[in-house]
């Protein structure tokens, strides 16, 4: 058995000696046991030095035994599964675990940057704001050095192979913490039948009982815990979560829990997800999160071997580890005497207890005296000797004069210094919930504030430090919470009682006085992780940083991974002292999630990756497109075929082919993604009149019309074709990307502004699969594919709609066109989309029917000067800018109309949609390119517009573009310039935006 391991039998402590575990630290192979944390196993192996501090690279050891730990931060594992900044005190060891120290190079023992320690006098709080400014150009170099020096662990450099689950959960009562208070709360609430969740971040329940030698109801504490746990497990509506940290308390009793499922297991035993995020809506919450012991602030209090007294107890009782052989205890309260007794019983030599109180007389000090341990009362430890490990401590007598101690310095040899500065209730979650923590002078700690949500604190979290109080408060809180959630049970047994004795009051001791003024002697650390010393806080106050929030930001107090769990209160008190204020005045910094750090992975969950990051919306024809080798484009959440390259074809070649085939014979495109809304009811026409800029009431049945929709600000918002299906029913198309927005926008007007209109809106986007058959041969294809429709130009004219069948599939066919060609849109129920499409392909085969994608669709529409909302418009474009003044009704009001009459919308020099023809007919302008008049003008060059759409038109044999140009319509014929990044300038001539078939003859044939 290694040196630091106490002799123990199987039942003592929480480790299992029959299950040894091999692990490595900094490359050295070591042994521990099942139940050990990395910290306990290291201590058992006599290893105290575990890391280097952030700023000064001082050697650091293990301070605590749980989440409060500021120093023992390690890098876990290697490769894709490495984890930075793991607390050795929280990491359960498993076979094969590899960990190493952070922030040191080349090695932990010999860290080059420990020279920072030498220069530490030049590095007080905020020193970097005062220097590194000259010469100006050097800052980026200095900064690089600063960056390299800071930071703790190393990020993985490979994608995470693990899985992360998430779930929602609901309960009547959520209990945080499974110490005595939390266990009793869960028990009392559970017995009523309420739905209860009990979460504790440790590997097993018990909280501080895991290292207690007290008895409850005459049983050893952990025996009692086991009994309670059994009862809880038997409850049907009880959910017990271990290794689960409640890390956030949000509005309306929404709490977040991170459950670690695998981190304690060797790789080969890991099953399923690594972590699970619980998103809990709790009707009532009981916070039984315990209390954290505070360190004391004295010279070199950061040396390895200086530990919290409760941590020493924990290592002895829970892990059967002796963290030292000769210990000095330094305290301002009784609880450290308990630790001293634990040490004595474990055979550790207790050199003395240094107590700042003049007459410690409680039960525990008496017991210790009886064991023959010296108590040095009215005294303090002022300094620690030893660098990589405590060697001795210097003790001086109080009181101080003007803050300075005079007199004898007594040197006491020790390799362990156990300290206790009192206890701070874990008020984090109650503070996060909105309650304002209040300072309590008697107990020298912050207590949870008046609840503003449905929560209460119990036990040490509530400032009740005696075990009996924890048990009874927990029980009461659990019962009360259940009652308020609607569950009661009158036969609750009385809470159990324990062996624990009452303690004497604590005597606040913040900055421990010494023979030096603060800042002149050895460093007295307040926040160990961020190397914030008492002198830094005093300096901040001296320099005018009086608010605790300023001090936090100026010194980095509480900024670390530990969020100041053990350091903050001392820092606040020292600030108060130096400002001559009270701690209540100074107050706390804001408590925020997370209580302890949580992986990005757990919060992201499985909603990542190609399939699950966002829904991929697919049309009924998706698989067909895929089989035909389509390249896809994301349009909103949809995947749309972009083009269909044949083998060896470039995108441009494919698009040229698709365009020509469509213009010359026939093409086919899947337009199922367009938004489709049925508008029904007797006021539908009136409704459309208000929503669209043009008039609708006179549209004949089975006729279609193009509509333009504006925001109330007069800017173009959406467009599409709407068909009148019957007297009171219309069928509206929206853009693919705009569909959801338009639908909810229309519902909003109907429901909130015009509830008197008799109109229903029903979204039918998903019900229909739609194919557009486009091109001069489209009529022939339709005639071949359809029954029951007369396709002659007279009986089925442009902008009208008919019902019939395609093959045997009932279909609605709309003769509308987004390409300027003769074209039909075939709508069938989506379940029959594929057979419909296949019929059309088969019939079209003799005409070389060519499927085309969005790129070709864009070229075809641009040749016709048709806009795409969102591409040729950007939220600052009016109908008139687009040359669509014709679509604005003069006789009725419509949404956005009034805005068009504002001064700015009437300006002559607004940007207007025009065409651009490059002088070099094959040169395609970059979309987004800026347009200038004089390419040689000095910077800033005035810009008169930009290219919104630009393509090579195979059909015209010319590059074409659409652009928004200032006063563009009156500039047609002028030459403008588009300067490129590489310095070249492309000249182009402004033209009418309609490049092809300006009279619209082709679509009307």
């Amino acid at each position, binding site marked *: 058995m290694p040196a630091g391991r106490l002799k123990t039998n199987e039942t003592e402590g929480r480790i299992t000696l029959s299950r040894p575990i091999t692990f490595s630290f900094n490359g050295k192979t070591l042994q521990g046991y099942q139940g050990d944390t990395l910290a306990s196993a290291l201590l058992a192996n006599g290893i105290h030095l575990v890391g280097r501090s952030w700023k000064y690279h001082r050697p650091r050891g293990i301070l605590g035994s749980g989440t409060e730990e500021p120093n023992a931060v390690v890098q876990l594992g290697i490769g894709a599964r490495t984890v930075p900044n793991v607390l050795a005190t929280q990491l359960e060891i498993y076979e094969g675990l590899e960990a190493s120290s952070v922030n040191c190079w080349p090695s932990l023992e010999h860290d080059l940057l420990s020279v920072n320690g030498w220069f530490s006098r030049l590095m007080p709080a905020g020193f970097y704001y005062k220097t590194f400014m000259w010469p100006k150009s050097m800052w980026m170099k200095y900064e690089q050095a600063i960056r390299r020096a800071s930071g703790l662990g190393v990020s993985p450099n490979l994608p995470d192979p693990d899985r992360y689950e998430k779930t929602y959960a609901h309960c009547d009562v959520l209990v945080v913490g499974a110490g005595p208070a939390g266990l009793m709360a869960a028990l009392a609430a559970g017995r009523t039948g309420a739905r209860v969740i009990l979460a504790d971040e440790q590997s097993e329940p018990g909280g501080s009982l895991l290292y207690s030698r007290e008895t409850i109801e005459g049983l050893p504490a952990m025996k009692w815990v086991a009994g309670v746990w059994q009862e809880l497990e038997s409850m049907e509506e009880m959910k017990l979560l271990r290794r689960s940290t409640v890390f956030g308390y949000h*509005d*309306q009793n*929404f709490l977040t829990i991170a459950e670690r499922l695998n981190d304690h297991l060797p790789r080969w035993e890991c099953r399923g997800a690594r972590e699970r995020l619980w*998103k809990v*809506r709790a009707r009532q919450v009981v916070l039984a999160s315990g209390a954290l012991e505070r360190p004391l602030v004295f010279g070199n209090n950061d040396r390895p071997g200086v530990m919290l007294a409760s941590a020493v107890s924990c290592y002895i009782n829970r892990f059967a580890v002796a963290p030292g052989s000769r210990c000095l205890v330094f305290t301002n309260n009784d609880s450290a005497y308990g630790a001293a007794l634990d040490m004595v019983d474990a055979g550790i030599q207790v050199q003395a207890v240094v107590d700042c109180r003049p007459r410690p007389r409680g039960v525990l000090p008496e017991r210790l005296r009886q064991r023959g341990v010296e108590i040095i009362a009215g005294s303090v430890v002022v300094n620690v000797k030893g660098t990589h490990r405590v060697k001795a401590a210097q003790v001086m007598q109080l009181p101080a004069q003007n803050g300075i101690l005079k007199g004898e310095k007594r040197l006491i040899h020790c390799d362990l210094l156990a300290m206790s500065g009192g206890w701070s209730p874990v008020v984090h979650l109650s503070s996060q919930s*909105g309650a304002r923590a209040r300072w309590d002078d008697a107990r020298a700690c912050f207590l949870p504030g008046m609840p503003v949500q449905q929560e209460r604190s119990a036990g040490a979290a509530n400032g009740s430090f005696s075990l009996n109080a924890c048990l009874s408060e927990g029980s009461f809180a659990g019962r009360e919470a259940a009652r308020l959630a609607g569950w009661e049970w009158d036969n609750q047994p009385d809470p159990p009682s324990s062996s624990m004795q009452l303690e004497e009051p604590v005597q606040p001791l913040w900055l421990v006085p010494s023979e030096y003024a603060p800042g002149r002697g050895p460093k007295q650390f307040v926040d160990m992780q961020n190397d914030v010393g008492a002198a830094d806080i005093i300096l901040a106050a001296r320099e005018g940083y009086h608010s605790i929030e300023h001090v936090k930001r100026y010194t980095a107090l509480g900024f670390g991974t530990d969020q100041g769990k053990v350091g903050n209160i001392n820092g606040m008190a020292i600030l108060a002292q130096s400002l001559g204020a009270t701690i209540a005045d100074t107050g706390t910094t804001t408590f925020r999630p997370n209580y302890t750090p949580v992986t990005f992975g757990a919060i992201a969950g499985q909603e990542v990756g190609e399939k699950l990051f966002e829904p991929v919306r697919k049309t009924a024809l998706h698989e067909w497109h895929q089989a035909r080798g389509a390249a896809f484009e994301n349009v909103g959440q949809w995947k749309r075929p972009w083009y269909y390259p044949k083998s060896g074809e470039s995108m441009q070649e494919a698009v040229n082919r698709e365009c020509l085939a469509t213009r010359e014979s026939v093409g086919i495109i899947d337009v199922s993604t367009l938004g489709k809304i049925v508008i029904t009811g007797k006021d539908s026409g009136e409704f459309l009149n208000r929503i669209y800029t043009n008039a609708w009431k006179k549209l004949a049945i089975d006729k279609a019309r193009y509509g333009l929709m504006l925001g*109330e600000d007069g800017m173009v918002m959406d467009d599409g074709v709407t068909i009148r299906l019957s007297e009171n029913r219309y069928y509206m198309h929206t853009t693919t990307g705009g569909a959801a927005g338009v639908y*909810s926008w229309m519902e909003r007007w109907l*429901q909130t502004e015009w*509830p008197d209109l008799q109109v229903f809106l029903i979204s039918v986007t998903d019900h229909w699969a739609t194919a557009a058959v486009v091109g001069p041969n489209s009529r022939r294809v339709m005639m071949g594919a359809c029954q029951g429709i007369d396709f002659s130009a007279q009986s089925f004219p442009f902008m009208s709609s008919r019902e019939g069948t395609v093959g045997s599939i009932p279909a609605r066919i709309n003769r509308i066109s987004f390409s300027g060609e003769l074209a039909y849109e075939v709508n069938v129920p989506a379940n029959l989309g594929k057979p419909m499409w296949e019929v059309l392909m088969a019939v079209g085969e003799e005409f070389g029917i060519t499927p085309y994608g969005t790129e070709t669709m864009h070229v075809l529409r641009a040749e016709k000067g048709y806009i795409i909302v969102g591409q040729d418009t950007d939220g600052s474009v009016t109908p008139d800018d687009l040359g669509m003044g014709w679509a604005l009704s003069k006789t009725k009001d419509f949404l956005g109309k009034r805005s068009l009459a504002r001064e700015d919308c009437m300006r002559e020099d607004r940007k207007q949609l025009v065409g651009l023809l490059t002088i070099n007919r094959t040169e395609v302008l970059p979309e987004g390119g800026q347009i200038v008049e004089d390419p040689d003008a000095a910077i800033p060059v005035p810009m008169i517009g930009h290219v919104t759409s630009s393509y090579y038109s195979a059909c015209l044999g010319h590059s074409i573009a659409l652009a928004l140009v200032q006063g563009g319509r009156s500039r047609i014929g002028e030459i403008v310039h588009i300067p490129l990044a590489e310095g070249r300038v492309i000249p182009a001539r402004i033209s009418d935006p309609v490049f092809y078939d300006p009279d619209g003859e082709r679509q009307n044939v």
Partner: protein
Amino acid sequence: MLEIPCPWCGLRCESEFSYGGEAHIVRPENPEALNDEAWADYLFMRKNPRGPHLEQWHHVYGCRRWFNVKRDTLSYRIECSYRVGEQPPEGEI
């Protein structure tokens, strides 16, 4: 995550809703009769109070109703919700 009482569906999680901003902004009867200031007031100017706020929400993943909520913008507490067309609750606003 807020928990919002839909007047039809009861308490539901915020993610089922979309937000609609200040409630009870009435579209002017005859916009053409307004001057630019009055129109800008309707279009853009908002109370945006720090405290109780009457606002619109849309139960977009639920019953698709728009409705009104009285919520405190500082504490985020929701006092009540009520249907479109109903009067806002009495009290400080």
